[in-house]
């Protein structure tokens, strides 16, 4: 039986719990897990003050309850499986380098900032700055995959340098702002100013989007890599249809305020 933590008391203020990841809790019994330190606002507290702990750690960690005030779940995770039933708070999977996080619910802002590897799947919506760079840092996500079935808000993939962010619903403004490289796919609508300040990388959308004046139209073509990527995210459960896979795409180059090596691909005729 895997380790299962069920929320019994909702925190009054945000609870910072970076210990809630399969690596940190590996090999611990329920008692030891319950004694792990967390920060409740500016007060030290323990996991047991908020969670009922059952089972024994075996590489899979199950969390249950409305954890929308619990921050840093799965932060620094390197391996294992983390399943959450319910919503999660900010900084889910911050700096994770491996393993698999699946959330059946919504996620707060800053999903997997500075992620280096592994995979995060959110079946609901996510907040701002998915895969972004924390304030002051020049580089966001460095690798791995973030799959979001619902919608995301602003600055998705802010300063990302590698990896994949796939969004089944819509994205807010500044999708891929300042991105250095990597790929963002948005199956729904994108907000304003997509790709602002991007250096390299690809932003893909299936709907028309308003281009910044610092982007230029290059051509219409059928990029081979995109078919592979779309098949891959379809297998992850996102609603990719055959028109997406077989369609031609308008290629826009930008952002000329930077090195102009980035691209935005919009499904032609959509």
């Amino acid at each position: 039986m895997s380790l299962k933590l069920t929320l019994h008391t909702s925190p009054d203020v945000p609870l910072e719990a970076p210990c809630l990841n399969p690596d940190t809790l590996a090999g611990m019994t329920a008692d030891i897990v319950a004694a792990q330190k967390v920060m409740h606002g500016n007060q030290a507290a323990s996991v047991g003050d908020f969670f009922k702990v059952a089972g024994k750690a075996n590489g899979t960690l199950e969390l249950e309850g409305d954890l929308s005030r619990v921050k840093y779940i799965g932060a620094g995770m390197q391996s294992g499986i983390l399943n959450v039933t319910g919503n999660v708070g900010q900084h889910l999977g911050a700096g994770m380098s491996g393993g698999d996080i699946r959330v059946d619910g919504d996620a707060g802002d800053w999903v997997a900032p500075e992620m280096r590897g592994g995979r995060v799947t959110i079946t609901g919506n996510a907040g701002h700055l998915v895969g972004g760079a924390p304030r002051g840092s020049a580089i966001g996500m460095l690798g791995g995959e973030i799959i979001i079935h619902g919608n995301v808000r602003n600055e998705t993939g802010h300063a990302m340098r590698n990896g994949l962010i796939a969004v089944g619903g819509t994205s807010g403004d500044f999708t891929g702002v300042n991105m250095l490289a990597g790929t963002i796919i948005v199956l729904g609508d994108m907000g304003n100013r997509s790709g602002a300040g991007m250096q390299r990388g690809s932003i893909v959308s299936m709907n028309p989007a308003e281009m910044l004046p610092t982007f230029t139209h290059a051509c219409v073509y059928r990029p081979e890599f995109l078919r592979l990527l779309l098949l891959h995210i379809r297998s992850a459960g996102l609603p990719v249809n055959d028109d997406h896979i077989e369609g031609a795409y308008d290629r826009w180059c930008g952002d000329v305020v930077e090195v102009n090596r980035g691209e935005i691909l919009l499904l032609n005729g959509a």
Partner: protein
Amino acid sequence: MSSSLRIVNGKVHDPANGIDGEIRDIYISDGRIVDASPEDAVSIDASGMVIMPGGVDIHCHIAGPKVNLARKLQPEDHRRDPHPGTPYTRSGSGGTVPSTFATGYRYSTLGYTTAMEAAVTPIGARHTLEELHDTPVIDKGFYVLLGNNIFLQNLLKEGRRDEFKQAVAWWVNSTKAFTTKLVNPGGDEPWKGKKNANVEDIDEKSTETGLSPRDIIQAFVETVNELGLPHPPHIHCNNLGHSGNYKTTLETMKTAGDLRAHIAHIQFHSYGGERGKNPTSAAREIIEYVNSHPNISCDVGQVMFGKSTIMTADAPLAYLLRGFKKGKWVNADTECESGCGIVPFSYQEHVFMHTLQWAIGLELFLMSEDPWRVLLSTDHPNGGSFMSYPKLIRLLMDREFRIEEMKKVNQKALDKTSLRDLKREYTLNEIAIITRAGPARVLSLRNKGHLGAGADADITIYDEQEDKEAMFNAPRYVIKSGKSIIHNHEFVGDHIGKLLHSTPAFDTDIEQIVQPFFEDYYSIEFANYAVSDQYLHDHEVIAGIKTL
């Protein structure tokens, strides 16, 4: 905690009183060191430990507008290095530019109890005083930047030397400063007025004022010696960081003649070679001049590998450095007074220039003949954080460790220096001089840097260890003004240190001369400019010595 303490069985290093490692008892009563044991004294057994006066940092950047700008510029530094509170102390954030509270507490965890902020624009004095008040445990003061002040330069240009002197004294009083600071004297105005201009030669006359850096340096050295400030002008020479700048540094020291002058972070001013090309080490030329001229004091400004933050009033220098990294940076103009530049930086072992800087600093230390005048600093945070002092001390005290560290650096750069041939190892007493007794003497702090009767009871007690880095990293006890701050490595108390400043006498008629200039050129009213006494909080006026 009792106000009386008795520290017994410790090995005392008090070079100012000629005590070198003797087992002695130290008595403390009412915040001062006393001769006889007070009756109700609480004892601390310091067997196997080394007792030194609290450290005195003569040159660092820890408070004021530019420091705050550097904090705001680098949130990533703070996120990675939180500074948790304790039941006695407040929390903060670290990195190369820690928050005010963390700065005070971190200094005290190294056994430092006094630190001098080395560059504050007059208009930033109020902000600096408020931040210093929030920098706990340590006593502190600051040097006021006057070397690029347009009003003062106009007086010099017109030959009004007495009014110049009065105005300097007025400025020191109005800002509650400790002494004057010159940064790239005469260089910031051409920089602000013309595209990328700077002065390159100490005798180059400015087209606006007709003054050369030498004219300004000479006027300040004479004036400050006449006024008898507790510390001579603190000079950041022209051409910092440029190859061949050692000639400028030598000329600056010669300009002082036999008058007292302090050369700041002299390592950055000890480069040979041709401007624009790779530098060589001119440490020998520089240190020989310092060794043979007892009127000159300096702090080394050692470079330590790792992250640093370049933070300077030398705006053209910051502009130059920003080109190497292409990261975020700040350049600012400070009204009629100064410039400012901030560049996050990192010194790396494999880089030729960085290794050369590291080696030149060590050469200066190891070839110094008078530890009382060649003092320890990293120009925090420019050459590295003050948190790297313990490692620097180990580099000076432990040749084997030095040899190990030399293996990690750029060998081509190391070949250009004499560091491999220097066998000297500092003794504990010499370390006590360059970190405590020496700075206190150069700053005329008569109650600091020693453990004689009447001295402030600022005391650090280290476990005697073979690994000097570990030893200086974690004093077992730190006592500030007679109060236990750290006991058995744990904080047991807090303390608000006092401001150290000077109040040279001046003729108040000078205000009538300064005021019209303010009304014409400043963004604030003259009446609002001088800092009122309520900003002093707890303070001590340090009397100077007239040497002219």
